[in-house]
């Protein structure tokens, strides 16, 4: 009886192996590599990104895999933990390329890590599609094999400047009367944000009244907020990752800061609504992606559908909103699928050229790379926390709600 069962299992296995193409079972493996932060200070977001990669791989498998010529492939990723350290990331990238013979890379988490790894992939001419490094400086090095699906960081809060100008005009004032206060962390990402804000503010002739750099280990910014009280700016910009967001929201409420428009980054990562409740109301938050946007594609469906299915696949996200870090990681895998199919081969150069010519609509937004490798087809979105809900208020073509202005001290 036992032998019979075994024979049966074998036969079924053999049958499955020879079933027609399209069945995910007989697709070959196509290996990607990624050094990603599973421990260290970027661990939370590193895991978000990894989950995004894995979810996309699963979805693509369900949709018949990657079809190159008459063969089909399923992605498989070799992950190494870079411990949130740049030098470790670069070493692991070498290892992936030299020892594991990986020919295509997915990005790590954060601009800093991407900056550390990009020279390695460039040296070995290995294409890297990254989803988590937004620093503008990444795309000023003339890298040929680096592509990013996300918007670069100088765009993060620039739309708040535009919004402040619009509001000034509505009040019959000239935008040049708007006073801007900027407090950003002293790291490449936040300095890009500052550059973007200043660039737009200068164009509109706005005055900068505060320009401060936050330390890496910020836990108190009352000194800056006291100055805000004295100098009364019309727009306050804060960017300092999640601790910057948490510290700003708490102390803005404690010190009863009365600024008509406050825009910050990393609201979701710091869970400012969950932690500080009403204190976070009417604060503007920038985001790469929101599940309420009307983007769509054949694999993931709409942005809302992505959110739903992702939560089903990863129940630990059931209680929170799916972070954009996850969505953009999935989009990066999708770019690979699209490029492989258009290239029609596994030739590294052909695939690189196909990636460079990407022009697609996805649930994450449109993706089209500039010659420098950054995505120029997707705008940043500004959401406002209105009664504890994140509502899209800018840019106006995607806005689902009107912005509450001026903000009252909470």
């Amino acid at each position: 009886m036992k032998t019979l069962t075994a024979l049966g299992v074998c036969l079924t296995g053999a049958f499955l192996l020879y079933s027609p193409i399209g069945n995910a079972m007989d697709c070959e493996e196509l290996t990607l590599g990624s050094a990603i932060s599973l421990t260290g200070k970027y661990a939370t977001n590193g895991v978000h990104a990894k989950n995004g990669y894995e979810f996309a791989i699963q979805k693509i498998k369900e949709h018949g895999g990657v079809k190159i010529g008459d063969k089909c492939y399923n992605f498989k990723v070799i992950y190494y933990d870079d411990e949130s350290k740049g030098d470790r990331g670069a070493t692991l990238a070498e290892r992936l390329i030299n020892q594991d013979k990986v020919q295509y890379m997915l990005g790590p988490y954060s601009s800093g890590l991407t900056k550390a790894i990009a020279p390695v992939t460039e040296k070995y001419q290995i294409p890297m599609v990254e989803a988590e490094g937004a620093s503008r400086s990444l795309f000023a090095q003339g890298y040929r094999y680096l592509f990013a699906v996300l918007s670069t960081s100088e765009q993060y809060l620039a739309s708040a400047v535009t919004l402040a100008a619009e509001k000034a005009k509505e009040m019959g004032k000239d935008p040049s009367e708007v006073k801007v206060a900027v407090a950003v962390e002293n790291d490449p990402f936040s300095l890009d944000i500052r550059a973007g804000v200043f660039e737009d503010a200068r164009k509109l002739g706005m005055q900068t009244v505060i320009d401060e750099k936050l330390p890496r280990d910020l836990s108190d910014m009352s000194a800056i907020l006291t100055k805000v009280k004295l100098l009364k700016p019309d727009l306050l910009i804060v960017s300092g990752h999640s601790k910057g967001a948490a510290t700003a929201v708490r102390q803005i409420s404690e010190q009863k800061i009365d600024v008509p428009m406050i825009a910050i980054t990393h609201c979701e990562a710091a869970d400012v609504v969950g932690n500080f409740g009403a204190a976070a109301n009417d604060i503007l938050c920038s985001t790469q992606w929101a599940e309420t946007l009307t983007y769509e594609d054949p694999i993931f469906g709409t942005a809302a559908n992505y959110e739903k299915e992702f939560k089903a696949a990863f129940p630990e996200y059931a209680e929170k909103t799916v972070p954009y870090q996850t969505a953009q990681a999935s989009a990066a895998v999708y770019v690979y699928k699209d490029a492989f199919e258009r290239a029609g081969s596994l030739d590294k150069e052909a695939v690189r050229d196909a990636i460079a010519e990407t022009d697609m609509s996805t649930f994450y937004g449109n993706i089209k790379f500039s010659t420098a490798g950054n995505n120029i087809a997707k705008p940043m979105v500004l959401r406002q926390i209105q009664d504890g809900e994140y509502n899209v208020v800018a840019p106006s073509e995607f806005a689902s709600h009107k912005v509450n202005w001026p903000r009252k001290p909470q």
Partner: protein
Amino acid sequence: MDQILGNISLLFEFPVVNMKIIVDGLMIGALFALAAYGLALVWGVMNVKNLAQGDFVMAGGYIAWWLEKQGLPALLGVPAAFIVLWGFGWVVYKLVISRVIERDLFTSLLATFGLAIMMAQILNLLFGSDTQSVQLEYDTLYFIDGFVDIPIAKLIGVLMAAVLATGVIIFMKVSRMGQAIRATSQDSRAARVLGIDTEKVYAFTFSLNSAICGAAGAIIVMVWVIQPFYGITYSIRAFVIVTAAGLGNLPGVIAAGLGIGVAEQYGAHIFGIGYQQAIAVLLLLLVLLVRLLQQRQMRQSLQ
């Protein structure tokens, strides 16, 4: 440069800002002092420079934060963190510190440095790398046209810190254990000869330090934010304060803590918040320089 001058002129234009800066500085300084306080004990009694000081603070913060998430009142986190960290400190003493205490300085520095890295990573694995904080549902008091704000939560935190510090000072003065600790710190061999179980004193001192740090962390999570890798900030401040105040000088530690808190706030106002910590280190350099000059004079007079 213009910005610095502008910031200084703000101080004179709006004198009330000084008030605000001093109040903020004192409140921050009180918590720095608490973490430094434990370090002064351990350094003075055991001659162990605990580089994991800040990580004990973070651990205490996470205990308070976790308990609050389980639905317990937030203020309970302070005694809870004190007790849990006491036990933790005892285990760490038995496992690590007791083995390096007789060795040279370098060994104990390495051991506590390793401990700091391990603790930060364990906290990160347990609680994730997001910043966390506990929001107390208390009002904020406003003085002078709302310019000086004192959140009651902060006030409670500072009061708790003060109670804890006074408690320890009284304990050191009055209790038998306190006397034994002071005797051991003066001369451990003589203390042993006189029948003091120095091993027990060391274990007690290290546990007490760990517990004080834990309570400081539980207060910090209510007024600022914590993150697994923030320990180093508190370690650095604690070292600066203890070095400035001198070992074993507990009232001096408190004064230095408050002073550094205020100096940092002024520094942040005038030079920008990015230089806040630089001010602390600059002060340390100054103190060391003054000490060095004093000692040189003494040596000359000896000759």
